[in-house]
Every structure is written in C-alpha cells, then in structure tokens.
C-alpha cells in the first residue's frame, strides 16, 4: 500500500493533484511534458507504479488522451494533464470521450496564452475553451481549484463526476495554484467519497445515450461492445445520416449533464444575500478576493462573493440571486473577459456587471486593485 496516509502535508499543487488521483483510484496516466503541468506527469511516474498503476509519456497530447481513453475502456480510472497548447491538441479526443461516454480526467494547468504566450506565467484564458473547445453540441464539466487542498480534493471530485456521469471532466487549474506550496490535509480513506462507474449486468445490451447514464461494460468482458465517435444508437451501431438517432443521442448526452446541474455545481459563497457589491471569482484570483473583502469591510462596505468550484455547469441561479441584492457584480479574471459574459447573462440586468482584467507576466490581480474597484463602484452607484 502506498496511498498517501491521512495527515498534514506541505505539498505543491501539482503534487497534490497527483496524490488525489491515486486516492481516487487512478490506475493509468499518460502525458506529455509541458510547463506548468509537468510535475503531475513526473509525480505520477514515480508514485502510480508504487500503487500498481501504469504511467507512460506519450509522443504527443493526442496520443496521451488516446491512451487514457483506451485504458478507460478496460475499466481503469485514467487521467492526463497538460496546459494550453496541449489542451488545444486534445480537443478532438475530448469530444470523442464526450460522444462515447468515456470517463476520464484531463487537468489543464492554465498559463498565459494564446499560442506559446508566456509559458511559465499564470493565466486564466482557457475558461471558454474548457467549455466550448470541443466542436459540435456538447456539455462540459469543469472544476476550478483555488488552493493546494483543492488540487487534491477536486481531482478526486473530477474522477467521481467522470465515473458517475460517464463523461470527461476537466480540472481547470492555473499556474499559481499548481505551483504554490501550502499546508494541506489528507483525510482518512473512510472520510473520502469515491465513486465507481455503473457496470452492466450480463444480459444488458444498451450501453450508450441513456439519460439515466448507461452502464459501461469494459472490453474483454464478453459484451462485444461497439464504441464509436460517429452518431450511434443505444447499442453502439453507427447511424451516419439518420436525423432522429442523432437528435436523440446528442440531446441525451447534453441532458445527462444539464439535468444534473444542481447536483454537480459546487461553490463557496460569502454574504451573497446581503451585499452591496458582489464578486464572482475562481482559481488563484479568488485568493486576492478574500483579502479585498476584509479591507472593504474595514471601510464599512458590504461585499459578498461567489467563488466557483464548478465553472461548468455554471451556477446561473446563484449568481442571479446575488445580483438581486448587490448593485454591482465585479468579475476579476486573469484574462481579457471570459466568465464575465456568463455572469452578465445570469445577472440579466439585475446589477451592473464590471470586469476587472489583468494579463501578462503572471501578475495576479492584487487585493488593493480589487479594493479600488469595490470602493469606486460603491461611490458610482
């Protein structure tokens, strides 16, 4: 046994994610080196074999996610990790995993893009890519950790959601959260929830496109399962032109996730029902929000915030209800405005939505910059 023992650790975010994967029961990891995600591959290469799992560095990111998908069809929990350029290369297979209902976890440690951008510096510019990078209609589950503790916890949660809903799940981290070290605790295994995929009984024949999440056979179990990324019926048979089969499958796959939004969505909230200024934040940027709120309260400004742990599905209702009391909703992001538009859509004119954006050099939005925005918006309203 080489799972991490319950206790307190001083870990790096990427290390914590790898250890979380081991606790979640990950048995296969394939990756390709890229800053700032490489430590996950390196740590897994050392640690997963100690737990009887296999790690391979593949020839590129498409091969990495491809191998993960193959492993998942043998019944193994499987994961890969990358950053922007590699995440772009993975999109086709991410869509394949969605279409074939293949559970797997993809960690995207965001850095400053586009293209090679600033490879070692933090950014939060992949928010919309994580939602819409796949071509065609789809739904996405994307989680956003803001601490080393959550790199660990949300990696486990990503596996749980992937297995429960039979879908790829993206852990959308960022360079700052992935590279910082802080104190964190590993709970005992008894206190950790671990989900497993639903398996078919021996007479079952329908393995795809069911709203209640179809049971998933593994290869080599005698089910003769036909897996395809082409439009298929419940048995996996291809229908390349039938409009009804396509509608039924794709609507079903989207509904499977959409209808469970309330179960999937997770966030941290603070005084959202009694604030003049609301903030919607995620990832490393939320660390500045905590301090800015204290500074604002010292100045007697009533501030509340909603910190997204699930970016997608987006907690529309909760953002809207915060906007019923707040006059202004500030959206700080290390990009030029992405989740901003989703917030704006959810607020529906109930409050003024104000962006606060900063990019370049990995410089975070500071508590002081946020405070200035908060105080300024109170004066203006």
């Amino acid at each position, binding site marked *: 046994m080489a799972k991490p023992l319950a206790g307190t650790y001083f870990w790096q975010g990427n290390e914590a994610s790898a250890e979380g994967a081991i606790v979640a029961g990950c048995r296969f990891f394939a990756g390709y080196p890229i800053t700032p995600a490489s430590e996950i591959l390196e740590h897994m290469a050392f640690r997963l074999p100690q737990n009887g799992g296999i790690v391979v560095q593949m020839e590129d990111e498409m091969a990495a996610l491809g191998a993960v998908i*193959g492993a998942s069809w*043998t019944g193994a929990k499987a994961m890969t990790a990358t950053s922007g350029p590699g995440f772009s290369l993975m999109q086709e297979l991410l869509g394949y995993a969605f279409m074939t209902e293949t559970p797997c976890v993809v960690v995207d440690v965001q850095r400053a893009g586009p293209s090679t951008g600033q490879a070692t510096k933090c950014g939060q510019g992949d928010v919309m890519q994580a939602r819409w990078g796949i071509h065609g209609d789809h739904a996405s589950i994307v989680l956003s950790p803001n601490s080393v503790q959550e790199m660990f916890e949300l990696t486990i949660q990503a596996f749980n959601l992937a297995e429960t809903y039979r879908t790829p799940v993206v852990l959308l981290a960022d360079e700052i959260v992935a590279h910082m070290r802080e104190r964190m605790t590993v709970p005992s295994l008894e206190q950790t929830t671990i989900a497993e995929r639903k398996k078919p009984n021996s007479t079952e024949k329908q393995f795809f496109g069911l709203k209640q999440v179809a049971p998933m056979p593994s290869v080599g179990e005698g089910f003769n399962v036909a897996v395809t990324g082409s439009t298929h019926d419940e048995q996996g048979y291809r229908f390349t032109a039938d409009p009804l089969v396509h509608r039924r499958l794709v609507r079903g796959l989207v509904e499977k996730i959409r209808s469970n939004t309330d179960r999937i969505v997770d966030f941290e909230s603070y005084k959202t029902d009694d604030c003049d200024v609301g903030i919607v934040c995620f990832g490393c940027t939320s660390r500045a929000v905590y301090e800015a709120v204290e500074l604002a309260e010292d100045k007697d400004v009533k501030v509340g915030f909603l910190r997204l742990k699930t970016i997608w599905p987006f907690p529309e209702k909760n953002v809207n209800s915060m906007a019923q009391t707040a006059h202004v909703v500030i959206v700080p992001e290390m990009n030029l405005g992405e989740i901003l538009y989703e917030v704006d859509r959810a607020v529906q004119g109930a409050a003024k939505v104000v962006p606060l954006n900063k990019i370049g050099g990995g410089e975070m939005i500071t508590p002081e910059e946020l405070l200035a925005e908060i105080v300024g918006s109170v004066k203006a309203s």
Partner: protein
Amino acid sequence: MTETFTIRKYLRDLTLPFCAGCGCVTVMNCFLRAVHELGHNDLRKFVFCSGIGCSAWIPSPYFEADSIHTTHGRSIPVALGVKLMRPDLNVVVFGGDGDLAGIGLSHLVHAARRNVDIMVVMVNNMIYGMTGGQVAPTTPLGVRTTTTPYGSFDPPLDTVRLVATAGASYAARWTTMHFGQLKEAMKAAVTTSGFSFIEAVSPCPPAFGKKIGLKDAAGMLRLFKENSLSLEQADKMTKEELENKIVVGEYVRRKRPTFTERICETLKEAEKTAEEN
C-alpha cells in the same frame, strides 16, 4: 482442429458498407480465416481499434467483438492504452494508409520503436478512399488525384520498411492478390509477441482505380500481380527500376523485448521502492 470456416460466425448480422471490388472485404476475409486457422471460434480474446476511413470500418461494428472506432489517426494510442491494462487480450488495429501513415504516422513509428504488443493491419489503397480520392502519402508519383490534378509530386512512403527499421518484431507487405501469403502473415502477426505490422496493398476501384484508368477490381488485381516483386528480386534492382513496383514479403521477423515486458520490469522496481519507504 476447429470447425469449418464460415465468416458469418465472426460477424454481426449487418450489411457491409464497402463498394463492389473493395479490397477491405478481402482483408477482412483473410484476417478472419487466419483467426479461424489459429483455433479461435470467436473473437472473445480480441479487441479491435480503428481510426477513420473505409478500412477503419472493417472491424467496427461488423466484427462480433469488442471494437473501439476512434478518431482519424489515433487508433494506435487507444490500442496501447487497452493493451497496457489488459495484456492478456489480442489488440488489433485496422486502418487505411491515410489514417496510419498520414495523420497517425508518428504513433505508428513510436509503437514500432517501443515494440508495443499489438498488431496493425494497414490497408494501402494508395488514396484517401472515404473522402473521395485525394492524394495519400502512399500515392505513386504522377497520379492525378482530386488534389493533385496535374499529377502527384511527392514520392510515396515505404511504410513497411519504416516500421521494420523503427523496431517492430514483425513487418510484412502483401497485396490482396496474395491471399494465401496475406493470411499466413496475419497468423504470424497475431502470434507475434511485440509489434507486428502488415501492409495489405488493396484495390479501391472508385477512388483510385479510376484515377489510373482502370474501371474495376480485376484490372487493379492484374496490375498488382504484374508489379509485385519479392524482396530477393528487389535486392538486385536499382532505385529507378523499383519505381512503382510493389515489393512483397516478410521484411522483418525477430524477437525483441516488448513494451509490456519492459513496463512490468519497472513496475517490480517501483513496488520495491514502495516497500522500502
């Protein structure tokens, strides 16, 4: 010995999608006969992976077996993932020359280098069939395809030689004219430990035959016959003489440590460090 051969016992009750005269049917037949002669009465011990293209449809979903029909070019990585977690299963990849030697070429070379214990069958029709006849990395020089209307200007890739050089345990090329040899090669490939690769040069009458002025499969098969040479014959010929020839035979058959064997070694090492900690 096993019961008599009927292709039906390995197939689902579905209509095959291939054009009249398509070599994919011959390749399918050859493979299933090989499997039959090796004593498998069903495909329970096999998993099939394929990419996108007509050839990629050979197993999926027509084989009564587990099949994973992946994206264009990515069948080999998916097969690798399956094999690593289920080394007891025979993992077989089918695909076209565009799929395996074009968009997916790097996976093919790396799988050969690593000697991953999977079998890959590349149906080489020298063209992109499914998409209607565009030039492929295997198209002979000078052929007028839909994307080389003035004649193709790239020399074709010798995929078998590349795979053999990269480190495969087994690599062979035959045409669908050589039914017996192709079937024997399939048997050798299924039973090889390590990476095995078969290129089956195959007729695609509508998308390739037409381009070179041949209307049906019979004409194409005649052409294969006239232009095929053994490796021994080819050895005595110059590069110029070999242009547009199909050099058939076994390019390599050797014992090399396989990918899974090597990984198992490192797993033992890791378990030791886990105990020491």
